[in-house]
């Protein structure tokens, strides 16, 4: 611990399927103290549990080994510590895999895991109220397969204090992956909500990686982004007082300015004054961004209040099966033919296969489906008014989908779309079908004292 020093945190991934090369570039040229891979969404954890139920050695991020293999040699050279929640539903197995990769590479690095987020037994005991249904957990008919509490930054800081070079966690709150190294390096008072709020701001801005540097931002007319194919991931230099300067490598594509930071600040935040995390209730309502140079932004103004005495828990349930099929119609009367095709499929799913009609959803892709009927064809090109409904789109892709109880019922949805080839309207092409099991995700709270984080050094 070296008080007074500025710590550089780099974003290595913003979701489980994120690109690897921008992280390698940062590891190689970013002079990072920490490289953080945020790889968990609510559904990622629950989906990991279905894989773990089928194979006790699975359930962590399938890209974990590939990511570590790509960055660890550079991290060793630069003295960079890796923190990741890629452990997902099986941080123990992920830690073992990380240690294997380190051995294969011939590196001296040490691995620590953070576990204790799995609270399946605790939620069964407490039987808490479920947010989405308003009922007790035990009143929900679907099979509960997973319950993961959002851990905070403290166990991450403890894992770092153990001397680990690679920290692998399960469900840790996304910003806490970044706050953990700041607690460890700056020795912040865990009871100082202002510092925790500032550190959480840093984590929130970095947690989606490329979304801070022009990813999910580009619009060729209103918001051009240079060289988006080589979008660089961001880093932040954080001082002992929580002051933060964000940057990206000059060699990389993308842009980092007050507008990209503003969009990321408010991403999935419904109350900027009360962003609840396991560590602090952060207040972003007074945050401002100042551009201090090319692709350099100073973020300031975050504060915070004491954390709640409960932790959010993500519950995963077996939610049945989703079946779907798609087919394209183009040219004159394509929307009419797509509607006829949908009528045929819907009627057969009900009368021949016994599906519940209300489970069947039809979308006309290219004719306003994404706007859920709100814009109609008006959304396509500003052709407002009722006349728009009479305009034939160039082409329409029909999508029929249904959520059903069994795999067998799910598979007939796409089958019926595919069989339009020889039985349906004229000129249908490019049919595709798939079906998959659904994990339904819901949320509840548990008292903090029910959750016991554990740090293990491998």
């Amino acid at each position, binding site marked *: 611990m070296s008080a007074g020093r500025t710590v550089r945190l780099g974003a290595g991934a913003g979701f489980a399927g994120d690109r690897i090369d921008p992280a390698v570039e940062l590891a190689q040229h970013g002079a990072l103290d920490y490289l953080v891979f945020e790889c968990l969404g609510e559904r990622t954890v629950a989906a990991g549990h279905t894989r773990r139920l089928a194979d006790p050695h699975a359930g962590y991020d399938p890209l974990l080994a590939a990511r570590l293999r790509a960055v660890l040699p550079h991290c060793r050279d630069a003295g960079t510590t890796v923190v990741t929640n890629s452990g997902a539903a099986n941080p123990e197995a992920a830690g073992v895999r990380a240690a294997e990769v380190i051995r294969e590479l011939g590196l001296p690095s040490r691995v620590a895991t953070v576990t204790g987020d799995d609270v399946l037994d605790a939620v069964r005991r407490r039987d808490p109220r479920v947010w989405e249904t308003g009922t007790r957990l035990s009143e929900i008919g679907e099979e509960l397969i997973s319950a993961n509490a959002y851990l905070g930054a403290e166990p991450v800081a403890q894992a770092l204090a153990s001397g680990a070079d690679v920290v692998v966690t399960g469900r840790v709150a996304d910003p806490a992956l970044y706050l953990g190294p700041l607690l460890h390096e700056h020795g912040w008072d865990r009871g100082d909500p202002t510092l925790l709020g500032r550190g959480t701001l840093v984590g929130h801005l970095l947690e989606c990686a490329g979304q801070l540097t022009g990813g999910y931002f580009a619009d060729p007319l*209103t918001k051009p982004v240079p060289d988006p194919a080589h979008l660089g991931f961001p880093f932040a230099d954080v001082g002992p007082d929580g002051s933060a300067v964000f940057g990206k490598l000059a060699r990389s594509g993308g842009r980092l300015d007050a*507008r990209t930071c*503003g969009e990321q600040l408010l991403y999935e935040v419904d109350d900027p004054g009360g962003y609840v995390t396991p560590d602090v209730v952060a207040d972003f*309502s007074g945050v401002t961004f100042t551009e201090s140079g090319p692709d350099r932004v100073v973020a300031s103004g975050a504060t915070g209040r004491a954390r709640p005495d409960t932790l959010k828990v993500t519950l995963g349930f077996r939610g049945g099966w989703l079946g779907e099929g798609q087919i394209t119609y183009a040219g004159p009367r394509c929307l009419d033919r797509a509607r006829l095709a949908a009528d045929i499929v819907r009627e057969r799913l009900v009368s021949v296969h016994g599906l519940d009609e209300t489970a069947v959803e039809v979308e006309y*892709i290219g004719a306003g489906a*994404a*706007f859920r009927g709100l814009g109609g064809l*008006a959304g396509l090109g500003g052709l407002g008014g009722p006349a728009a409904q009479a305009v034939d789109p160039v082409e329409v892709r029909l999508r029929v989908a249904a959520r059903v109880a069994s795999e067998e019922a799910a598979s007939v949805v796409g089958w019926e779309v595919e069989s339009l080839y020889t039985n349906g309207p004229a000129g249908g092409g490019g049919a595709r079908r798939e079906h998959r099991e659904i994990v*339904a995700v819901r949320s509840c709270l548990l008292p903090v004292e029910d959750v016991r984080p554990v740090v293990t050094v491998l």
Partner: protein
Amino acid sequence: MTIRVDDLADVRAGDKGDTLMLAVFPRGDEEFGILRERLTAEAVGGHFAPLVTGPVHRHVVPGLPALVFRIPGVLGGGVTGSATLDGHGKTLSYHLLTLELPPGPDGDPVVRR
């Protein structure tokens, strides 16, 4: 000539369960003034009716500046409850851009691009 949100601002969508969240980023101070006055919670609710199931809430974040709207019900079951292709409602940010603003008391400003 009427002006649309698209002429004045950028929008980012996010989701929490059934609720759609839209963050609106005016492109300048003048645009912020217009949107703050005319892009009300009621106007946004009307633009997303009939999918809206409850009151639309608006937060003003002057430091950025930005307006944040919480629109309940739009996502009908959310990402795990609905069979819809874009269950997150990610594309709906651009629906808000098509909203035509009611005219102001002093007429409309020249739109910059």
